[in-house]
């Protein structure tokens, strides 16, 4: 697949995400469920991005692991897949797409402005632990996004009493259960990512832990996730809103760790000569 076609596919995915965002807003305005059209659009996004990734993989002879473009492209795909699967299997968190869609749109627009030139994956980086590390990381981010986005909708419902907003989570108790279940699984996935990353780093550059900014902020994210679960156990009368606000803060740190820190810090994740 040519680079031009790959770029066109990415553009189509971004336009589809813009459509998904509009559909979500229209759903709130007209007080109707936007789940079915959104799921259809997400399916198309997944198909288009899968084609772009497959074409790039064949052309470059390596997976999308290294550059900012690779990370944005692969995460856009994995986030869309996971949101599609989570909302299909857990009806209580279908409202997550209200906040997740604009976030994916932002990632997509960012992707269109990033250089698509691939950097060869150093031989030392290419082992099975890279796969475990990357896949568990993507699972973490996708599940955490679903939980946080659904929690954000509940926060909005609490802040702006509206019948139309209330319709987004018709069964708050079920939604609350599913949000925390997703959050817990995302914590497990984050733990796997952390351990697999340490094993991979030891193999790739001889250090399982070196307190570089990415490792430090990943540990901070892990402590925040674990801390939030602890807060929930410690303060039994903790309000739902505070729990959701803490979840939002943890996601913000995780998001910045994923998309900010690796590209502002030093060489390890980019390869050395």
């Amino acid at each position: 697949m040519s680079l031009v076609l790959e770029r066109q596919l990415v553009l189509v995915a971004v336009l589809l995400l813009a459509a998904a965002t509009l559909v979500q807003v229209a759903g709130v305005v007209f007080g109707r469920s936007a789940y079915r059209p959104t799921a259809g659009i997400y399916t198309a996004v997944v198909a288009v991005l899968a084609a772009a990734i497959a074409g790039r993989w064949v052309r470059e002879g390596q997976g999308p692991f290294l550059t900012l473009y690779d990370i944005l492209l692969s995460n856009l795909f994995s986030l869309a897949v996971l949101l599609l699967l989570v909302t299909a299997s857990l009806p209580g968190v279908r409202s997550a797409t209200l906040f997740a869609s604009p976030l994916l749109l932002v990632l997509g627009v960012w992707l269109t402005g990033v250089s698509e030139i691939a950097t060869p994956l150093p031989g030392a980086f290419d082992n099975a632990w890279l796969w475990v590390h990357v896949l568990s990381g993507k699972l973490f981010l996708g599940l955490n996004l679903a939980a946080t986005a659904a929690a954000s909708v509940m926060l909005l419902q609490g802040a702006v009493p509206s019948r139309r907003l209330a319709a987004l989570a018709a069964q708050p108790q079920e939604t609350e259960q599913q949000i925390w279940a997703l959050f817990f699984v995302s914590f497990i996935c984050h733990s796997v990512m952390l351990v697999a990353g340490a094993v991979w780093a030891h193999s790739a550059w001889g250090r399982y832990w070196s307190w570089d900014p990415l490792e430090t902020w990943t540990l901070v994210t892990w402590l925040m996730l674990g801390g939030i679960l602890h807060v929930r156990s410690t303060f039994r009368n903790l309000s739902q809103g505070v729990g959701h606000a803490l979840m939002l803060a943890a996601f913000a740190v995780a998001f910045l760790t994923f998309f900010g820190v690796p590209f502002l810090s030093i060489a390890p994740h980019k390869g050395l000569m």
Partner: protein
Amino acid sequence: MMSLLRKLASLRLTLVGMILLAVLAVIASRRADVDAGVTVVPLAILVINLLAALLTNRSFRAQTGLLVFHVGLLLVFVFIGLTVLLRFDGHAEVLQGTAFDAAQVETVDQGRWHDNRLDGLEFYQGEVRINYLPGLNRQDTHSTIEYRTGSGELRRVAIGDTRTASIDGYRIAATFNKGFALLLQWSGDDGSEILGAVHMPSFPEFDWKQVTTWTTPAGQEVELELDFDRPVSSDTSAWTFGDTSMAYTVHVAVAGDAPRTLQKGESARLEGGAIRAVDLRVWMAYQIEYVPFLPWLFVAAMLAIGGLAAHFARRYLPATVPAGTDKKEDALAHVARA
């Protein structure tokens, strides 16, 4: 005593420890004057807090998944502590065609309890071949070494990107650092004959500046520059590092004297003796590491994750109860509290 233990087991103390750990980790990673060792304080708080909770909190012990997760975490802390005390981390450059010399190891980090056995470490450096893609991107590394196993068997392995060698408990890993070396013969006016190697700067990182200074056995400081007759590396095409068969020139410069050039086999007169360019070799840099509890650290971490997964299954997955019974509502209420 139990009252003190209960206070130490407080979940609020856990939160204090976690926040302190996060804050100190960020500070240590951002400030060069703060050592990561400061994280020992919150880690110690968390270990004491966890031990106290294990001793005093019966309901905590009754939840198997949660218990396994925390015991796994405790073991992670224990193995990290043992690793810090016992570990060794160093670097060494080894010349092609020679044996590893423990005296050349530059120590990066050594634990207080590490029993240094580097003198007993023996391996021989063979051929080095590192393939590069256009753009000076390292593709794969093959550094052949020979060593004797514990049973006395001679083993020859090519270590590199994902393969390391374990000799006498030490892990030998090839690094990205390598370069050319000049094998020089020193013939002193006093009749001394010394054969030695001068390691040139890392290649291709400093392919534009293959210059180094060397002090002769007679005490004179000499600048040596290695110059190849044709380009060795390429930014636009694939190439391989490790070949030493190409023609080269050594420029020998001494302060206050006209520079001289040497081809392979030629000599130059210096103060107190003469040097002869004997051969061109490569040197390879290795990380020499001793981390005895690393596999156990991994097992403990996986145990913790397994416990977490078991706890999730117990807390969040719906209980298998017949539909339409009161038990289903009880189960949902239980999940909501979790």
